[in-house]
């Protein structure tokens, strides 16, 4: 009974291989899934604006399905369901001589999280695109720019201002949602803790231990996010606006100041 400080400290702060592997897994899975989510979200957002009804339909269906079903079910569906559907196992324990950490369960969970995330990112990117004044696209078109160039060079860079804050929140969520991967046997932080108390029968200490790590990760990310948003210049005041792009692209303060203010 009671809280055993020694067990807590031992689990949490003894720097050992399994802990490092679990932390790496959590972070790597979150980053990869988020990246996949951004890419799929962009495709779905653009697809949703397509003149082609098939592309538009597929994009809509994708968002509808993955936002409308539980992500935990999606993970299990992919990991257990896909092999039975295909008749072979695309998710073996290990891929050739890749590190064991990046095995089939890791891949399945990362894919499922990323595909799920894409559905949410699509809505965020869509809102970002819609936030850009329609005169911008018209000006670009009137100069002879193709729809692709108009999007990539004129619309999306301006949409970033609206996309980045919710994107940051999505990644905060993703860091925590990776814990669902434990159900298919990915040894991320949660499964690490479960493995521990499976032997010690003291669940409280390691579970609080991994909370420490989740808090550490989300707090660090919060700091990064704050800086990023500051650079994107939430305020639209004249001088801030001026340095907007320069400040996004340079890390230092006092980014190049351009032109004279009238």
């Amino acid at each position: 009974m009671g809280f055993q400080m020694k067990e807590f400290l031992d689990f949490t702060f003894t720097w050992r291989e399994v802990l490092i592997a679990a932390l790496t897994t959590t972070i790597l899975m979150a980053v990869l899934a988020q990246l996949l989510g951004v890419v799929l979200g962009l495709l779905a957002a653009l697809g949703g604006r397509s003149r082609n009804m098939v592309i538009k339909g597929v994009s809509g269906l994708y968002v509808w399905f993955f936002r409308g079903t539980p992500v935990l079910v999606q993970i299990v569906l992919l990991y257990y369901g896909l092999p039975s559907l295909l008749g072979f196992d695309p998710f073996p324990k290990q891929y050739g001589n890749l590190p064991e950490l990046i095995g089939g369960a890791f891949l399945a969970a990362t894919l499922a999280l990323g595909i799920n995330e894409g559905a949410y990112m699509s809505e965020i990117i869509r809102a970002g695109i819609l936030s850009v004044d329609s005169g911008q696209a018209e000006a670009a078109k009137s100069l002879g720019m193709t729809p692709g160039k108009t999007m990539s060079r004129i619309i999306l860079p301006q949409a970033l201002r609206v996309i980045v804050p919710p994107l940051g929140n999505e990644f905060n969520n993703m860091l925590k949602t990776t814990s669902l991967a434990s159900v298919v046997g990915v040894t991320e932080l949660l499964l690490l803790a479960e493995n521990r108390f499976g032997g010690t029968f003291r669940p409280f200490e390691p579970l609080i231990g991994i909370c420490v790590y989740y808090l550490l990760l989300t707090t660090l990310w919060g700091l990064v996010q704050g800086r990023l948003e500051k650079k994107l210049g939430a305020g639209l005041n004249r001088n801030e606006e001026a340095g907007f792009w320069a400040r996004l692209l340079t890390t230092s303060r006092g980014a190049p100041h351009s032109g004279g203010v009238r």
Partner: protein
Amino acid sequence: MTGHQHATDVAIGHDLLDAAGGAPTGSSEVVVDAQHVDKWFGKLHVLQDVSLQVKRQEVVVVLGPSGSGKTTFIRCVNHLEKIQGGRIFVNGHLIGYRDVAGKLIEDKEANIAKQRQEIGMVFQRFNLFPHKTALENIIEAPTQVRGMSKDEALEVGNALLQRVGLAAKADSYPAQLSGGQQQRVAIARALAMKPALMLFDEPTSALDPEMIGEVLEVMKELAREGMTMIVVTHEMGFAREVADRVVMMDEGRVIEEGTPEHFFNNPTEERTKTFLAKIL
């Protein structure tokens, strides 16, 4: 750039078109040929059998009350709006459509984009790209669309900025420029594509009064240099001084067309008289 320098007053005087790389030549051929254009917005018949020809180097001013279809018409000329009937040709090319056995089939985006390269447009609200400097705004299309080298584009861009009196503002972002300055950059941006035709939609109506002059000055210079222009404006001084022809629209139709002299001295249509009485 430290910006200690003040923007000089508009000191153009020389060739805006030279800055963009040469004025269009030729004189009498038709640049814009709009034939019986019909357009609906839902149930609203905004353009009704509108026909208009603009010859090379001609400046046509379009007048008319609010809602008469002026903006809609010039947006059809570069296919920012679809049309439901008639044909619009620019430099002999049917704009926005393929004519398949007398039926209009909308063209591919890539082809429409190509056609738009020849048609510059200046908007009421400037629509400069806020994430790019004045100079970057100007070189964007030449480099991205025409495939011009960055060095060459910078040269063209700087020359154009000089011509519109804004050489000192090359590195300023739109938000750091006054309305008049923004509109002059927007004109330079359109000219950088060396268009055969320039469309202006009330280019000065979003400006503070003291800035209207500097923009009109640039437009007058452009007209003197032989640019073919369709200008929607309520600036009667500009129409009188620069227009070769004035076109009056009302309720989606062209109701009167003539020289500025005819228009301002003895217009025939009652609605034209009423309109002019209101705005002069």
